[in-house]
């Protein structure tokens, strides 16, 4: 079955990859974009897959935190599906961008000229929250796997779930703010976070149910929850209709009405029936997101080949990646196939009984003295400290929009990040990892840091000093010194040094703009041509340097008059005056 699905995934991936390449090459013109919002299929797929990505960890973490017993195989499946969906989901915002190579500007780093990402934009919150969520989901999954071999690590699983539960809700609320924080009438409403979270849970349940169908067993609890979610989202759609008059008919049919077929015993008990209902829910929710992302669209949009190709890419990628990983991890970690639930129907009864809640045999323990709480105490404290530090830092960064309101969406992710990592480390997982692997990871981090540093600092357009050497300025200077009395001026070579120190960061050491500058800023400084310098005249150039211009800082008090005049002459030299 899994092999068949892997092949199906590969088959779907081929047209998908073609569409993806064409989308990357042609850009946003290649797919359908809404007239009003300029958004289209990639954002729709992003919201859809990020919703699915919340399924596994949410289910696993919620059940664990609330004390509902879900058997390990199902939980692992769900967590794996989360990782796969998440790695798929992050592809689409990149595809969506007009200038993909500028994506790093969304990350909250101060660049070389102090320009910061707009901390008030929901996209920046998204970027950070999803990054944290992805990392912690991976750690949660890793802990789950490794605690299979080292049962001592099992202890952090429940505290980790406590951390993840609010994070999942938080992250999807932030994703909903992409829509709700705008002024588009169709996207407004305080209920949007709830709407998105319910939609995510619902689609996640449908996905997990479909995956369970592929495995050949079922979990009644998840089916019941799916029905319940369909009512819940039905209520929200009703609310949306009553307040704004927006109604997604097909989404309602596929994800609102059809799942009710689970009430029929024949459908419920047949594997195909369950699979079809699950797929119908996924289809309905996908359509709903398509409608939502394109508010000005009344009918089904005129989807082109690239749109359909991207859908095919996402489905194919997920199938191939999920079932590939499932097999790989299954082989790697466990001796038998039952780890991920390779069972036939005969074991179904046993599985069902495993999902039943345990009998109340444990005696009451004060929550604050429980073993789990004692495990999470220190990491949580570290997390709270990190959050407070972050808050204080944010409020003190000058010239950014890091106000309390703007950084509020990032507070819990910061807390969860620090607490989660320290919890994971405290489980003794590092002792299990071999020295060599650790060394490689550390080296990789250092290398990455260095590369990122080089990238952000930029590079000069020409090596400083090369100008001076190559043109043998000193010689020229000696000649000119002989010719005229240069008592009042400073030499050309010292001007060149001054230029390289003071001016080249923007104007380039050759006077032709710094590459880094051209990449990041507009308006760019003028190229120094002789005609332009002539038209401005020496005095006017002097004024520009000493008093500054639109984007140029004033150098009054930082340069002496002689130095400025020297710079002006050096500019003429750079511009090609012989």
């Amino acid at each position, binding site marked *: 079955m899994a*092999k*068949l699905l*892997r092949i199906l995934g*590969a088959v779907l*991936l*081929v047209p*998908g*990859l*073609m*569409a*993806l*390449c*064409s989308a990357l*090459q*042609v*850009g*946003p*013109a290649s797919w359908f974009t809404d*007239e*009003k*919002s*300029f*958004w289209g299929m990639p954002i729709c797929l992003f919201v859809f897959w990020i919703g699915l990505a919340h399924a596994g960890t949410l289910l696993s973490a919620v059940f664990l935190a609330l004390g509902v017993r879900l058997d390990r195989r199902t939980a692992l499946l769900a967590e794996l599906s989360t990782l796969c969906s998440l790695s798929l989901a992050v592809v689409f*915002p990149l595809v*969506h*961008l*007009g*200038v*993909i190579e*500028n994506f790093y*500007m*969304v990350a909250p780093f101060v660049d070389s000229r102090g*320009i*910061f*990402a*707009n901390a*008030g*934009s*929901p*996209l920046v919150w998204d*970027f950070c929250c999803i990054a944290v969520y992805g990392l912690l989901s991976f750690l949660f999954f890793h802990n789950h796997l490794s605690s299979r071999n080292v049962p001592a690590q099992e202890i952090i699983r429940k505290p980790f779930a406590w951390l993840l539960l609010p994070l999942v809700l938080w992250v999807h609320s932030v994703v909903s703010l*992409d829509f709700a*924080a*705008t*002024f*588009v009438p169709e996207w407004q409403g305080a209920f949007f976070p709830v709407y998105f979270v319910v939609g995510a849970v619902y689609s996640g349940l449908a996905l997990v149910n479909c995956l369970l169908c592929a495995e050949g067993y079922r979990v009644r609890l998840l089916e019941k929850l799916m029905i319940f979610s369909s009512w819940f989202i039905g209520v929200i759609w009703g609310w949306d209709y009553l307040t704004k008059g927006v109604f997604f008919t097909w989404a309602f049919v596929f994800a609102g009405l059809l799942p009710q077929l689970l009430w029929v015993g024949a459908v419920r008990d047949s594997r195909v029936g369950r699979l079809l209902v699950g797929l119908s829910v996924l289809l309905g929710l996908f359509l709903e997101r398509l409608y939502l992302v394109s508010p000005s669209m009344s009918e089904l949009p005129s989807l082109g080949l690239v749109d359909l190709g991207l859908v095919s890419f996402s489905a194919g990628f997920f199938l*191939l990646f999920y079932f590939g990983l499932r097999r790989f991890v299954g082989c790697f970690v466990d001796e038998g196939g039952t780890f991920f639930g390779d069972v036939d129907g005969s074991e179904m009864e046993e599985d069902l009984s495993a999902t039943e809640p345990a009998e109340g045999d444990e005696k009451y323990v004060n929550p604050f003295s429980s073993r789990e709480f004692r495990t999470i105490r220190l990491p949580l404290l570290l997390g709270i400290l990190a959050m407070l530090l972050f808050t204080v830092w944010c409020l003190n960064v000058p*010239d950014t929009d890091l106000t309390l309101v703007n950084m509020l969406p990032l507070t819990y992710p910061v807390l969860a990040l620090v607490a989660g990592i320290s919890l994971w480390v405290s489980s003794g997982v590092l002792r299990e990892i071999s020295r060599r692997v650790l060394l490689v990871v550390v080296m990789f981090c250092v290398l990455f840091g260095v590369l990122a540093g080089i990238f952000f600092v930029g590079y000069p357009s020409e090596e400083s000093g090369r100008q001076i050497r190559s043109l043998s300025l000193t010689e020229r200077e000696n000649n000119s010194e002989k010719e005229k009395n240069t008592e009042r001026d400073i030499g050309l070579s010292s001007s060149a040094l001054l230029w390289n120190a003071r001016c080249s960061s923007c104007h380039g050491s050759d006077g032709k703009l710094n590459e880094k500058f051209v*990449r*990041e*800023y*507009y*308006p*760019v400084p003028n190229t120094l041509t002789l005609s332009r310098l002539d038209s401005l005249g020496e*005095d*006017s150039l002097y*004024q520009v340097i000493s*008093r500054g*211009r*639109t984007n140029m800082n004033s150098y009054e008090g930082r340069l002496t008059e002689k130095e400025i005049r020297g710079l002006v002459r050096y500019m003429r030299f750079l511009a090609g005056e012989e």
Partner: protein
Amino acid sequence: MGMDRRDFLKTCSLLAVGGLLFGCRKNALSEISDGLAGRIPDERLFEEEVRLALSMSRKELDLVAVPMPKALETKGEKSPNRFGMVIDMAACNGCGKCILACNRENNVPLVTEEDAARGRFMHWIEIRGGAPFMCAHCGSAPCEKVCPTGAASHTPDGLSTMMYKRCTGSRFCGANCPMQARKFNFNDAKSLGLSRQFNKEVPLRSKGVMEKCSLCLHRLQDDRLRFKTESAVAPGASAEWRGRGVKTACMEACPRKAIVFGNWLDGESPLVKAVSGRTLYAPRSLAPFDPSVLFLMEGR
């Protein structure tokens, strides 16, 4: 299913490589662009496109009365300038000369035929309700609030500006503008031979960035530089730059003087003189955002 893992992986990677190669092939579009690279479109084409846009213009423009724009605060400081425009609906007859002038001034590119058929022009000005409509340079601009990179930002002089080099093309600003005043560069106009640099002072925009009316920012900057240089040469004439005498391209082109550009905070500005005693209007959906480009209606 007699396929072992080795074969499976082999097939998968072959398929993936095949897909990638197919996607990277030289497609019809790039062949056209290769042929067109460096070709500069005729001026006549720009006129024709404006005529086409006029024939497809939207009829509705829902206006409400708004108060006169006030000084903006940036980082706690009140700026002495706030530039804006007013468009007299009574004087305007919707001839579209402003659109052409704007296109020539700001090097607005042509669009492909498919885009033109869908009404997806790059024009910074479009005719709505019989009068020119462009970005209103809102005081609390919704587009700037959601821009993730800070490419859309406000100058102290009240202009909503674009840093093209900082734009990553997320189109969030376009989604958040209630009037869709922002235009997205879907195509690489230069390589398609659709753009022409009429004006050397304004850069050509690359594919994938947002653009919109800049209120002829370059003209204001030139005037400011001229003022600075003059006041440095002869200090004491006038302490502060108020942008007097600057005209936008659309204002210059208007045969009926329906567009007036100026400084809302300067009593001597032609803008303030033109609106004295008259009610100002703004599109209903923009009115809450403190727009700087407003409308006048007949007899009021």
